[in-house]
């Protein structure tokens, strides 16, 4: 059996297996739609907020109107008391409240100062930050207007007054994900993880199904078998990767900074290392459905330890160290730096080499494990 025939046999084994086909093709396609689905609207807008207006003056109504004008906040109702607002929030009808104190306008005109209180439901962080940002912006705006009126009343030149109200500009701009969208944030890391997990499951099902049955895999040397399997999965996954990193990134408006050659060069050791790891693990599974279960339980920890949801600096050191042997972990971070942050090739070189190192180690173990499985099978037959 030469290499081409072997690769053809591998292809046949993969395409004839319904479970692998469902996981690989079904899973990759299904998840490319399902996972980003909740985030398609990108940013939380128009959060429901109730107002408790104890002042009921022209100025307090102005603040309310300005808050409502913010895209982040929708003023739902004007309630009589904070207790009532509490019930609205605990019934889930509102997610935030704005309290305007009594004598708000009077105190401001007298130059005494007043305090606006905002509350947001911090059980949901995005809701809370949207409510807080929207209300604080409205409050600051009102504050500036009061200042301006005060200065003008004291006979200031309008232009000077404007200037002294805004004595300095703080220009805070998001970089790399300019829209602050949720899909550009989640998708680059998540899609690499999906590729990683489905590839592991695919090799796992294929291997676990084969070891107990006689077949073509016994008649070739373990090195050649591993090489052929790597090549076949690499071919299939280069198509999936192109779909994910190419079309899906474009479709979901993920910002892209690297060239196609850099991305391809970085994906190569990632896919190889993942596939080799998959072959190693497949030799440990006795049942076909076991690999799906193991990898399913692993996926959430791997996602969170990769460091794009929760900063790596805050993850306990031992967890970070252990996680470095999982190909997805250096790959997700490296790919983010390369493709989303535009760090340049030299910056991700260490991670690239780490992936090659992982591949080398896993490939050696894979060959040893396959050899052991072949020996077992031979012993069983004889």
């Amino acid at each position, binding site marked *: 059996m030469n290499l081409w025939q072997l690769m053809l046999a591998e292809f046949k084994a993969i395409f004839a297996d319904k*479970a692998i086909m*469902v996981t690989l093709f079904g899973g990759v396609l299904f*998840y490319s739609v399902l996972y980003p*689905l*909740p*985030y398609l*609207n990108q940013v*939380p807008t128009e*959060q429901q907020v109730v107002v408790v207006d104890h002042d009921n003056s022209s100025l307090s109504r102005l603040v309310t109107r300005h808050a409502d004008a913010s895209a982040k906040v929708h003023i739902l109702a004007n309630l009589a008391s904070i207790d009532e607002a509490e019930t609205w929030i*605990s019934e889930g009808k509102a*997610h935030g409240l704005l309290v305007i104190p009594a004598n708000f306008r009077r105190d401001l005109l007298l130059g005494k*100062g*007043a*305090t*606006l*209180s*905002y*509350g*947001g*439901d*911090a*059980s*949901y962080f*995005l809701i809370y930050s949207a409510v*807080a*940002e929207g209300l604080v912006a409205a409050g*600051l705006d009102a*504050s500036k207007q*009061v200042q301006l009126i005060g200065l003008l009343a004291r006979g200031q030149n309008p232009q000077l007054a404007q200037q002294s109200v805004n*004595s*300095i*500009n*703080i*220009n*805070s*701009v*998001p*970089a*790399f*994900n*300019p829209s*602050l969208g*949720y899909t550009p944030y989640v998708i680059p890391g998540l899609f690499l993880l999906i590729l990683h997990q489905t590839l592991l499951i695919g090799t796992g099902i294929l291997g676990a199904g084969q070891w107990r049955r006689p077949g073509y895999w016994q008649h070739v040397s373990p090195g050649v078998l591993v090489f052929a399997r790597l090549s076949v999965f690499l071919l299939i996954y280069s198509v999936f990767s192109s779909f994910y990193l190419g079309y899906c990134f474009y479709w979901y408006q993920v910002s892209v900074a690297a060239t196609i050659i850099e991305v391809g060069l970085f994906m190569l050791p990632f896919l190889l290392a993942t596939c080799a790891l998959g072959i190693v693990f497949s030799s440990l599974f006795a049942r076909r*459905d076991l690999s*799906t*279960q193991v990898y*399913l339980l692993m996926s*959430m920890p791997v996602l969170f*330890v990769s460091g*794009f949801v*929760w*900063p790596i*600096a*805050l*993850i*306990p050191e031992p967890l970070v160290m252990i996680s470095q042997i999982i190909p997805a972990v250096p790959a997700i971070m490296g790919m983010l*730096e390369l493709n989303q*942050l535009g*760090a340049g090739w030299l*910056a991700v070189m260490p991670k690239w080499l780490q992936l090659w190192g992982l591949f080398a180690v896993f490939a050696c173990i894979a060959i040893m494990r396959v050899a052991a499985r072949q020996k077992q099978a031979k012993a069983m037959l004889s």
Partner: protein
Amino acid sequence: MMTELFKREFNALWHSPWQLALISYIPLIGVLALWWLFSAGLPRQLPVAVVDVDNSQISRMLTRQLAANAVIAPQSYANEAQAIEAMRQTQVYAMVVLPYQLKKDLLTGQQPTIDIRYNSQFLLVGKLLSSQLQLSLAEGLTQVGQQRLLLNGANKATVDVSLSPITNQTTALFNRNNNYVGFLVPPILIALWQLLSMLVFINSLNQELVLYQNRYYFPKQIWALIATKILFYSPIMLLHGGFILLWLYHYLGLPAAGALVDLMLAQLAMLMALWLMVLVIFTGMRDSARSVSFCTALFAPAFAFMGITFPVNDMPLLAQWWRLIMPSSHYIDSHVSVISYGVELPHVLGQISGYWGFLLLLPFIVFFANKAKDVPKIDLTSNDVNQELS
């Protein structure tokens, strides 16, 4: 009869190392590892590049002001190019540029601009830094403004008020210090718990499949078997659910406004809904590998649909419908109500009645199961071990 079935179930569990792992150490390791990952709780000392081109008294004061913020760990960079490079390599999460002649412009009444760039690719960290940086800088600049007003001969009592007539007081309700353990860990653990429960149940069901002439059938007493499994595994998984609650709200002492017992009830309801979904898939597919794959595909993204990280109201309609299929999303609503709002039992019962849709699955289960019981004339009362699973 019932005790016998239970004994049989126990034996099956005892002889399956993987099932034993799924109900013993895997949940424990999973729960503790995921908590450990987020155990820092509050993002602190996040590196921020400060490019101080002005190098004046005011710019240094602003840098000190940044250093005084617990979230920010300012790091000096000599020029913008280096800071940008560091930001691209995620060595810093944001950069602040204090421009040339900042002090002079401030004193001469020009409007200088302080530039902040934050890494929004890491959305949570970026947003937090953006607001904290602005807060700290604004605080520092108020001091500068104060001095100027005083120098102009303003009355000391009126200085504060004329600088910022309206004070803002922002309160994070139900999670005072924006603790990530309280916010993110419970839904993650519930998602994990749902996956574990699903796997335990489907594995146990798959053991009952009978292979006959390349097709799978059910034994005659399938209903009794299913009932036994529900009675057997519900308490075990409930124990793990209870452990999660005790761990988070008793041992770690996260604030919980309501009674945890109510949540156990909600967990029981969630398990029942989950069992119904798994039963439909199991009876409909009758193939161990395929039903596991299908359940996996279905329940793996449950976390994204809970609506904790991204609010439900802002999801597209299709996502909101899909969310209703996931038992975990129903549960998490009760969880937040009890833990945050401290609602009482009647309210929780009201939420539990929201599971009624899952009862519609019952006819399908009965239909599929009865269809698969029509085995062509062989005795299948004994429990043949499924060859696929051996």
